[in-house]
């Protein structure tokens, strides 16, 4: 009985989501309390399990028995260090976001029960992905996560942009999921099993070509969920949702699911299964995403969009690390990134709330004096992100760069370049938003955030600073037997320090300390292109969406007019009419004709019988 306690990770949030939605539809306070309690409960359970309170494998349930026992679908939990520590990140950040949401959503007119039910169902789905012991279950969580993301992005569905963003996120994810599903089926066909634990043995003897295809197909899922190029377009738009949602789902946990899944596959299949081609594809996609997103981020004005693109860029880093077979480094960065990116988003959320829901950084300014604690926390997150030595992001970025320089120097230089650009745009953000003088009415009236918002910020700020050190990381990084690399001065260190200094100096040179009221780089065609997100969204809109719609319209038009109306309705009527006219001579009513037919019939019968 007690060994089945981990199922609570899944059951508790799901139950709470259902209760929130069905029972406490009209009492948001109760619903919120329940959700927070469930997050707290799962977090506590997670801590208990990590501290070795209880071991033992939970039961595996057969979900869909099939004819041969090997192929049936199971529901089972993986309880290894990777999963449990990932659970800690998910439930920890989830808990903080739940608490932060109380402050952030105060006074919001929308239905808070729905919001917290969405958060809980997200916790359920994310836990399913993390704890799943087979790909089928992962896929269930995968889709559920997409669904809850849809719910939460579209929380303010009366806002057209939010509704559109929700749709965009869902549909874009579907594209990747298609590949993922193909990958799962390929896995089933090639390996004969979907269970992670059995993959290691099953991988032997599979041809590299098949392996490559399988891994790339599975990677398609990661492309969608982790918002990699070319399916990255949904993530910046997803910022239309409430900021805590952005922090939890679209920065810290859900988008990391792709990376987690790839690392999980790498561990269970063994790195040998990731052929050179597959690795190259993965690393290249990651590198392209990292570079592109970083460049676009330099010209975004919306504070959340800057953070969104930085998330994209960092996810690109992680995916690159996966492609370089440095799954441990990827998980390390995922873990540090989760803390500091959650911090950044929650900090941005606090800023936004305090500026009366103003998101444009050019309409802020001088916030450092008005809300010092929030800004300080935000700065801690920034330092972690731009890899100031000593902060958590520094260590994990070093780990990735180290892996890159060993495996593929080209990716090392790409990573270093992205680091410089990251420093540039984050410094720009901080300089413009927090220093100088207020440039808008909202910023003038900004006051320190409320305690429910500050508490998570402070906790996360602490984590952003310390989580990279061995005394924390060794216990918390989602990787088996992880040990933090710590400081070591070497080539990588100099390069990343150079990138940091370069980015800092460039940003300070261009933007000063908040004295400017508009972007000095913003008046050329490159900036315009960057503001328009390199026209990728427009391209998708025009070519893919428009084209598909046109195509669909034509097909529907064709089906409607030609097939249904023309062929089925009119065609059938015509056919019946023709046949009727054709056959009407039979119904001539003439006795002799009838007897003729009868005679012919007799003849036929006689011929059949007698001859």
């Amino acid at each position: 009985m007690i060994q089945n306690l981990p199922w609570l990770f899944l059951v508790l949030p799901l139950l709470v989501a259902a209760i929130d939605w069905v029972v406490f539809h009209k009492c948001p306070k109760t619903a919120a309390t329940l959700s927070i309690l469930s997050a707290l409960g799962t977090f506590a359970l997670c801590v208990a399990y990590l501290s070795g309170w209880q071991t033992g494998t939970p039961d595996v349930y057969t979900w869909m028995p099939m004819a041969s026992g090997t192929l049936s679908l199971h529901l089972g939990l993986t309880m290894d260090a990777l999963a449990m520590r990932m659970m800690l990140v998910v439930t920890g950040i989830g808990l903080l976001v739940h608490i932060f949401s109380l402050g952030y959503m105060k006074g919001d007119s929308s239905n808070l029960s729905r919001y917290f039910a969405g958060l809980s169902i997200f916790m359920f789905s994310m836990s399913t992905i993390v704890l799943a012991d087979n790909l089928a279950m992962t896929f269930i969580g995968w889709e559920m996560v997409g669904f809850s993301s849809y719910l939460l992005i579209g929380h303010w569905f009366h806002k057209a942009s939010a509704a559109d963003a929700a749709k965009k996120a869902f549909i874009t994810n579907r594209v990747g999921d298609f590949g993922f599903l193909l990958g799962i089926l390929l896995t089933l066909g090639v390996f004969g099993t979907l269970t992670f634990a059995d993959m290691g043995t099953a991988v032997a003897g599979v041809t590299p070509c098949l392996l490559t295809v399988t891994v790339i197909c599975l990677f398609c899922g990661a492309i969608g969920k982790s918002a990699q190029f070319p399916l990255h377009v949904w993530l910046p738009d997803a910022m239309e949702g409430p900021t805590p949602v952005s922090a939890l789902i679209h920065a810290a946990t859900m988008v990391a699911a792709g990376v987690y899944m790839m690392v999980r596959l790498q561990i269970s299949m063994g790195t040998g299964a990731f052929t050179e081609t597959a690795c190259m594809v993965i690393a290249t996609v990651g590198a392209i995403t990292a570079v592109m997103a970083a460049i676009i981020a330099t010209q975004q004005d919306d504070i959340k969009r800057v953070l969104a693109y930085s998330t994209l860029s960092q996810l690109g880093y992680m995916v690159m690390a996966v492609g370089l077979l440095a799954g441990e480094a990827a998980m390390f960065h995922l873990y540090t990134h989760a803390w500091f990116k959650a911090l950044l988003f929650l900090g941005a959320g606090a800023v936004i709330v305090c500026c009366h829901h103003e998101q444009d950084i050019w309409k802020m300014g001088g916030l450092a004096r008005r809300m010092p604690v929030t800004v300080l926390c935000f700065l801690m997150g920034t330092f972690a992100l731009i890899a100031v030595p000593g902060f958590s992001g520094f260590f994990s970025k070093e780990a990735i760069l180290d892996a890159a320089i060993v495996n593929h120097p080209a990716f090392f230089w790409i990573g270093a370049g992205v680091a410089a650009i990251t420093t540039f745009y984050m410094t720009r953000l901080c300089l413009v938003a927090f220093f100088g003088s207020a440039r808008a009415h909202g910023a003038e009236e900004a006051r320190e955030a409320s305690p429910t918002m500050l508490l998570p910020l402070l906790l996360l700020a602490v984590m952003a600073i310390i989580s990279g050190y061995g005394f924390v990381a060794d216990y918390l990084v989602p990787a088996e037997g992880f040990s933090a690399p710590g400081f070591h001065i070497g080539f990588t260190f100099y390069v990343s320090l150079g990138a940091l200094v370069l980015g800092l100096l460039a940003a300070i040179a261009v933007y000063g300390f908040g004295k400017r009221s508009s972007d000095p780089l913003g008046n050329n065609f490159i900036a315009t292109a960057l503001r328009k997100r390199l026209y990728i969204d427009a391209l998708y809109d025009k070519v893919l969406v428009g084209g598909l719609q046109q195509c669909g319209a034509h097909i529907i038009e064709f089906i409607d007019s030609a097939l249904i109306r023309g062929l089925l309705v009119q065609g059938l009527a015509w056919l019946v009419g023709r046949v009727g006219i054709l056959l009407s001579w039979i119904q001539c009513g003439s006795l002799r004709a009838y007897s003729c037919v009868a005679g012919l019939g007799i003849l036929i019968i006689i011929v059949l019988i007698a001859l």
Partner: protein
Amino acid sequence: MTIPLAHYLIFSGILFSIGLAGVLIRRNILVVFMCLEMMLSAANISLVAFSRAQGTEGIPVYDAQVLSLFIVAIAAAEVSIGLALIVAMFRARRTVDSSALNTLKD
């Protein structure tokens, strides 16, 4: 040597075919009816021939002849009914032309 069974059967078949042709060709419903009777009597001939062919010790099998006797009786009943119908039809439509009997068409 007597006449083989086949010849009786062929004669019966020819008579039947002529009747059939009459039924198909003629428009006067009375004549059509006559041809029907001819077809019945043609069937009788083959039945009697079979009764002879099946016979043992020079005695025909009389079951077949009984059957043909029944056919004659039924034919008589049929003629009485059929002619009554024709009379009734003639009263209603003033014609015995079968091609005029095409009310089924409408």
